């Protein structure tokens, strides 16, 4: 019957050739007609499948993150009851940013909300892991925050995926598919961070505190608000007041408050502020490259940057920055060797800035900005 049909095909498709050319021309017409009417739909299904694959991976990473977190809490905190339910509740926590219709005073409102959030989350960790030390509580808090970020990324991608499928809108699916490589990169970085936080390993973002720790190691330190330490160190015949978050637990401190407090303590007689931080590299730039600039090198919600800028402007203090280039994946995963090796280069650069921009006997503040997990002082 098949052969009989093939015999008739040439007459149907206008061909006078053999059966193989008839099959090929028929296939061509079928493909042409299918793509003419369903081309966009086929393209959308291909995209949906791609997003679906990534969503499965995100779900796996999220579940794995939750598992690692619960295991770490059980191992370190020795809780009497199963912490899983409390961890699940923690993963769903949200923070509402202050109303910005009247922006006056919003920085202090945001600062207050972040303080309340931090205290609340720390209290939750203490309840989850009653046997853990202060350092371990900080590490567990960071671990939970990474798990929280993974949970959030998964839920957002799932939201747009389901919305795209429900509406069969090419544009929703297309937008999601276009940003997916970046989303996946970030999710993988957080997965890597989660493991580093659970073990208390230094991360790429800790390059600032690492430089500060290397400068102040062996000198007496004093605590400054909030969760920071300061040490007075002689460098190139100047007095360097070195500030970093208190380690080795996962902690970024509040460098804004610390810098303001130190400037106030010295009655504004500070000749320069040098900030050291990890900076996001562009594609093509080398990991661990050291660059120099002007301004407050600090990320986060902006509260600390605002406070530092406010303090230096009040006393007209020059603000310098030294940045170590790395990408988002390097910043939140265990510190790469290239970044650890850049510490000596940063110290050299800081010394050059001090020599070129200040005089002998001057006072300089050096701030190592970043998460000090796995870095003592």
């Amino acid at each position: 019957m098949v052969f009989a049909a093939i015999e008739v095909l040439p007459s149907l498709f206008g061909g006078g050739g053999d059966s193989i050319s008839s099959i090929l021309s028929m296939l061509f017409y079928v493909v042409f007609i299918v793509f003419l009417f369903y081309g966009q739909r086929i393209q959308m299904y291909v995209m949906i499948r791609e997003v679906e694959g990534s969503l499965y991976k995100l779900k796996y990473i999220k579940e794995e993150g939750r598992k690692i977190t619960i295991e770490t809490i059980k191992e370190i905190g020795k809780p009497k009851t199963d912490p899983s339910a409390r961890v699940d509740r923690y993963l769903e926590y949200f923070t509402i940013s202050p109303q910005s219709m009247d922006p006056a005073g919003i920085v202090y409102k945001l600062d207050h909300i972040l303080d309340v959030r931090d205290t609340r989350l720390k209290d939750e960790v203490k309840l989850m892991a009653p046997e853990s030390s202060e350092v371990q509580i900080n590490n567990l808090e960071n671990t939970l925050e990474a798990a929280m970020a993974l949970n959030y990324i998964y839920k957002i991608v799932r939201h747009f995926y389901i919305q795209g499928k429900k509406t069969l809108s090419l544009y929703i699916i297309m937008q999601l598919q276009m940003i997916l490589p970046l989303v996946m990169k970030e999710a993988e970085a957080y997965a890597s961070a989660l493991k580093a936080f659970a073990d208390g390993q230094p991360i790429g973002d800790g390059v600032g505190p690492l430089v500060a720790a290397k400068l102040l190691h062996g000198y007496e330190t004093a605590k400054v608000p909030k969760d920071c330490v300061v040490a007075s160190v002689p460098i190139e015949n100047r007095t360097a007041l070195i500030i970093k978050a208190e380690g080795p637990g996962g902690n970024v401190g509040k460098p804004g408050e610390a810098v303001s407090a130190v400037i106030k303590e010295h009655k504004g007689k500070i000749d320069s502020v040098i900030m050291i931080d990890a900076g996001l590299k562009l594609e093509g730039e080398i990991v661990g490259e050291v660059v120099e600039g002007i301004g407050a090198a600090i990320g986060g919600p902006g509260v600390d940057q605002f406070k530092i800028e406010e303090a230096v402007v009040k006393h007209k203090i020059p603000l310098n920055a030294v940045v170590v280039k790395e990408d988002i994946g390097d910043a939140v995963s265990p510190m790469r060797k290239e970044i650890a090796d850049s510490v000596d280069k940063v110290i050299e650069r800081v010394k050059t800035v001090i020599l070129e921009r200040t005089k002998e006997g001057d006072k300089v503040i050096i701030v190592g900005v970043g998460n000090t997990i796995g870095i003592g002082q």
Partner: protein
Amino acid sequence: MWATPSASDNRRKKNMSQNSSSTSKRISTYLMMIVLIVLALSIVSLLLSVNAFAAGNDMLAGFLLVIGFIAMALSVYVLLQSRKRAASMKIEAPKVMTTIECKKCNFKSIRQFQRGDFVFKDLDPCQKCNENMIITAIYKEVKEKEKTYNV
């Protein structure tokens, strides 16, 4: 401000997930249909090749055989790919190293990271000079080289 989900909300969510899974089923059926058509055509091609071989047309037989096998291989590959899920996924833990140094005699050793290690942690006395050793660095080594684009 945050309303608790009512029974109707839960029903709606259930329906939503049912809709979602039915859409997913439709996509699978759609894909399966295409794969089955290609598979059927590949079988037709193989049958035609046998026929051509019997008729003594070796060239056409070979041609149809190649087309048939390629189409069959492609359809089987797509079928297997569509079944492939997140089974092979895992979070790779990088190898993290700890550098320990003696500040007095500069004796240096590198070992794998252990939980509780941190930079500037005091450790046991040095084997050579009995001075306390400290951790000077903790890092991971990235083996693969980044691709360069010469621009």
